[in-house]
């Protein structure tokens, strides 16, 4: 922890309250093998679904013959595209691209399929194996069409147009944003550095793939859907829309969810299909995605091309930044579509008043892109931070000095950046100085780049960044057409045992919200942490909330939890005061499982007694309503910006391009940490995904066939624990003025720094050769190629 002190609430002293390393509530069941994931839901008479998928990137479906498959023993129903068009609506978009027309996304392709893996037929049978046998027996006559897989190539005039009924090109929309006079500043600049940066296509790999169990009770008109999702209430909304039902008929239950990372935000085709089958067959239908399907049918992420430019004075003061970038949408618009945050944070933690950023959304014949931890922030950070280092070399300054020189100071905040983001508060430079000290930057500089006796060259790379956590407001979202709010909602209900049941629509998918929520309540109410039971993710029982994404849960939920806790506490104290025959609640406080009388510490009343009195309405003050329950909805006034810095030290083998990450130091600030241990876990987990995207993960499509060439765990290089460098974490804790308790979100920040820090370190090591990396991932082969190019350049020049 840094020197910065946290103004803690008096109640923070509570064991397992805010600020404590409380043990995870979730772990008791998970570590005992008692978690209940969607595949663990095993209703009697359940049937199993398999999906037949398009093997081509782009193809017209000429004919589908299901006759042989229907005759297979055990097959119960087969749906084709026409059935789906008759019975359902296209899947809706939750976070639309401003200015974009809708691209009809039916659960099964209609006439033309636009990506490999797009569902074409679905089969339900008595076992998954039989359903898969049946899929093989279905004869589908395809007419393969010209495809386009390159993001920029998709926008060329000769590219085949993928949605000709809706658009005349593959440009879905262009979203500009800016402030000041960036072009004038660029013209005045002594130095302008610019380049094109390619960000790789990657995907998250939750241990639990997507899964659904759908059950229909026609007499009750009730569709019960067990679903592996981050947003059960949004899934309910989308299912109602697609299935032409009313929301009251649908109950979505997310039990334990084995990881989401943004991939499980909303409805996918298979969800609509499983429900249609279940309704027709009046039997439960289960579908669990296998890993081959996951690689093709669950959203990918990040792929984008950034044309970034920085103008500066001769002594390195940044005058303007611009970034024109193209995000790859894939073949269709998934509920969250391609990332939008590269716009909001493109200028990072620097004092830039003149800037322009433009997002172009390109449609290609690839798996749809969706949200993934970071949502545009790691992407743009790579482009900007690589250029900052280049600018430093151009003006003859150390990259550290250049960052120091241009970084926003605490007194500059709040600050509206040209991307539209409003930075709330923070000491950005403090995080940079922390990593610089920890890594002994000056010592490394003095020691030089080598070579060492083994021939390796040593480099150090820095990056500083901000992370937007939560949403600015419902108004901000409304302007962008988003189908959800910026608030969170929570219900607290006392029970007769003296405990509190906490109901939340935020399911449990590894982010530890059960634990953190209970800590907030324990702090505010004074009740024992262990007496709080969290019921999460069931739309039939929880208040209608927004959901868990965008590092926003605690940002918004903290306020709702605080308000509901206060209301419940105050009423409990009124009842306790009355039963203790006191005038008013002055000085009374809940302490663990009792309410204590301040005047007579020996005198107390059990919470169970107070709660029971309220629940049965007997023995409560006259005029007090019976019952003890509170629901609160809370929208923070603004998004809170987390921030941080990182340093990587690498040793590069200039003969092979191979490199070792010898140190990786990161500092960050998430304001007041509700649970520092969980914060650490979140950052470590996100870093692991950041290292994967920075070093090895790269979904690759064959340019000739348009097919995904590495869609298996064998060929997609997701790092294991053995591949991830040891990380040293440091924290500062500047409370945010825009949230309850001063929290900032923390779910995604770790994904941001690895690409930039590592690439900067490798380029620093190879600065003598003039190597400048412009693409992710940074593989040894890519480094070797960059070295070859640099050597060829210096030979020819």
């Amino acid at each position: 922890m840094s020197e910065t002190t946290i103004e803690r609430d008096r109640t923070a002293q509570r064991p397992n309250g805010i600020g404590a390393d409380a043990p995870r509530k979730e772990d008791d069941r998970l570590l005992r093998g008692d978690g209940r994931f969607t595949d663990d839901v095993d209703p009697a008479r359940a049937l199993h679904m398999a999906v037949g998928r398009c093997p081509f990137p782009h193809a017209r479906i000429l004919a589908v013959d299901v006759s042989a498959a229907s005759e297979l023993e055990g097959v119960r129903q087969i749906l084709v595209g026409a059935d789906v068009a008759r019975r359902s609506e296209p899947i809706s978009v939750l976070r639309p691209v401003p200015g974009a027309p809708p691209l009809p996304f039916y659960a099964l392709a209609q006439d033309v399929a636009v990506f490999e893996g797009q569902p074409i037929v679905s089969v339900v049978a008595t076992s998954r194996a039989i359903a898969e046998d049946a899929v093989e027996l279905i004869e589908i006559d395809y007419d393969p069409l010209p495809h386009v897989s390159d993001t920029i190539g998709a926008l060329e005039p000769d590219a085949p147009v993928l949605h000709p009924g809706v658009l005349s090109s593959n440009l879905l929309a262009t979203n500009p944003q800016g402030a000041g006079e960036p072009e004038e500043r660029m013209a005045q600049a002594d130095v302008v550095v610019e380049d094109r940066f390619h960000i790789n296509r990657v995907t998250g790999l939750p241990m639990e793939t997507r899964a659904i169990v759908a059950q229909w009770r026609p007499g009750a008109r009730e569709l019960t859907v067990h679903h592996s999702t981050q947003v059960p209430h949004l899934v309910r909304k989308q299912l109602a829309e697609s299935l032409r039902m009313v929301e009251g008929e649908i109950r979505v239950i997310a039990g334990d969810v084995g990881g989401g990372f943004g991939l499980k935000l909303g409805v996918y085709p298979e969800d609509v299909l499983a429900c249609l089958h279940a309704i027709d067959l009046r039997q439960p239908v289960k579908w669990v995605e296998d890993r081959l399907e996951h690689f093709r049918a669950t959203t990918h992420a990040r792929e984008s091309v950034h044309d970034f430019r920085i103008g500066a004075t001769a002594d390195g003061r940044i005058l303007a930044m611009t970034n024109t970038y193209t995000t790859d949408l894939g073949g269709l618009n998934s509920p969250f579509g391609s990332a939008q945050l590269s716009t909001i944070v493109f200028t990072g933690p620097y004092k830039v008043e003149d800037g322009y950023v433009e997002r172009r959304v390109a449609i290609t014949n690839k798996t749809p892109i969706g949200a993934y931890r970071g949502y545009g922030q790691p992407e743009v950070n790579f482009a900007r931070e690589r250029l900052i280092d280049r600018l430093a070399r151009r003006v003859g300054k150390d990259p550290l000095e250049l960052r120091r020189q241009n970084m926003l100071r605490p007194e500059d905040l709040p600050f509206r950046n040209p991307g539209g983001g409003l930075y709330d508060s923070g000491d950005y430079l403090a995080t940079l100085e922390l990593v610089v000290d920890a890594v002994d930057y000056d010592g490394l500089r003095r020691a030089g780049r080598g070579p060492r006796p083994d021939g390796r060259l040593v480099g150090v790379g820095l990056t500083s960044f901000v992370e937007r956590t939560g949403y600015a407001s419902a108004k901000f979202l409304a302007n962008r057409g988003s189908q959800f709010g910026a608030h969170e909602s929570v219900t607290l209900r006392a029970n007769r045992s003296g405990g509190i049941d906490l109901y939340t629509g935020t399911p449990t998918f590894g982010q530890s919200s059960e634990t953190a929520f209970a800590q907030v309540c324990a702090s505010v109410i004074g009740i024992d942490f262990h007496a709080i039971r969290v019921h999460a993710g069931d739309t039939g029982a929880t208040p209608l909330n927004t959901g868990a994404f965008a590092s926003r849960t605690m940002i918004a939920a903290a306020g709702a939890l605080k308000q509901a806790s206060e209301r419940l506490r105050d009423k409990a104290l009124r009842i306790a005061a009355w039963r203790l025959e006191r005038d008013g609640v002055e000085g009374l406080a809940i302490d663990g499982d009792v309410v204590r009388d301040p005047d007579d510490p020996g005198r107390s009343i059990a919470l169970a007694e107070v709660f029971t009195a309220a629940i049965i309405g007997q023995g409560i003050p006259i005029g007090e309503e019976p019952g003890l329950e509170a629901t609160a909805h809370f929208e923070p006034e603004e998004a809170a910006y987390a921030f941080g810095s990182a340093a990587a030290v690498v040793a590069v083998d200039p003969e092979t391009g191979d490199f070792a990450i010898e140190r990786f130091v990161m500092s960050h600030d998430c304001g007041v940490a509700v649970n520092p241990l969980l914060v650490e876990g979140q950052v470590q987990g996100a870093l692991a995904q950041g290292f994967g995207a920075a070093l090895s993960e790269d979904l690759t499509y064959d340019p000739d066939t348009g097919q995904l060439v590495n869609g298996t765990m064998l060929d997609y290089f997701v790092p294991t624990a053995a591949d991830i460098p040891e990380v040293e974490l440091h924290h500062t804790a500047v409370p945010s003025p825009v949230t309850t308790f001063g929290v900032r979100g923390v779910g995604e920040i770790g994904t941001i720094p690895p690409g930039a820090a590592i690439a900067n370190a490798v380029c620093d090591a190879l600065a003598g050769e003039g190597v400048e990396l412009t693409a992710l991932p940074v593989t040894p082969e890519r480094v070797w190629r960059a070295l070859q190019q640099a050597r060829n350049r210096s030979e020819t020049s």
Partner: protein
Amino acid sequence: MKPAPFDYIRPATVAQAVDALDQHAGMARVLAGGQSLVPMLGMRLMRPSALIDINGLEDELGRIECSGSETTVGALVRYATLERSPVISERLPLLAHVVRYIGDRQVRNRGTLGGAVAQSDPTGEMGLVCLALGASVLARGSGGERTIPIEQFFEGSYANVLEPEELLVALRFPLAPSRCRFFERGRKHNDFALISVVAVGSEDADGRWHDVRIALGGINDRPVLAPAAAARLEGARWDAAAIEEAAQLALEVADPPDDVRASADYRRHLVPVHVRRVLTDLAAGEDR
């Protein structure tokens, strides 16, 4: 990812296994550790009519036997056994050493030597080491047993000269040279090799090297020897110039693929670099 239907047969003897293979006329598959076969079944890349599970044949296929300078390792001997066997670490230390580069603990507990050689993955460690050590493959079919020198065993990527009705029963190793060095690089920890290099040999009192063999994995469609490179060093004292020449000669056999792990160009670049480093380390007395 569910396999297509198949019959399941669990023979009690090798003779029954060979019989069953014969009856299925090449359409059946042997199930050993299942670490390669089961994923292929799941992806329906393979759809045998029957699986012949040899896991009950430990008695006949699970032994390690020594006879004079020869060591015979049964097809069903698991990686984990190779890793821990005192006999192997004494007589074939290279075979024990490379196990740590294979997959993870679970894979090593189930995967077998015979399965690995039969799988004939061009990047696999076992095939490479068998080649470097000059092993022979013992195979049994309905017509009896035959011995195939490993140099003649691999035919291409995942392809070998075993008949579909034949059971691989053992690998027989001659006396191993006294010195060996192994190097491997993958795209992630214990991934399939994008390049692996083995060099073995014996150094005499005079500082000259004999029985030199150099083998490359991940570079061609099968593990290959680099005979010209080895010949350059056979009977010689190794200095930097000799090693560099041998390293360049190793390129003569290289015909690398372009795939998701690396481009052909990059692999070709790496061959002399890593052959040189392996030989340099071996000459410097750094074994394994």
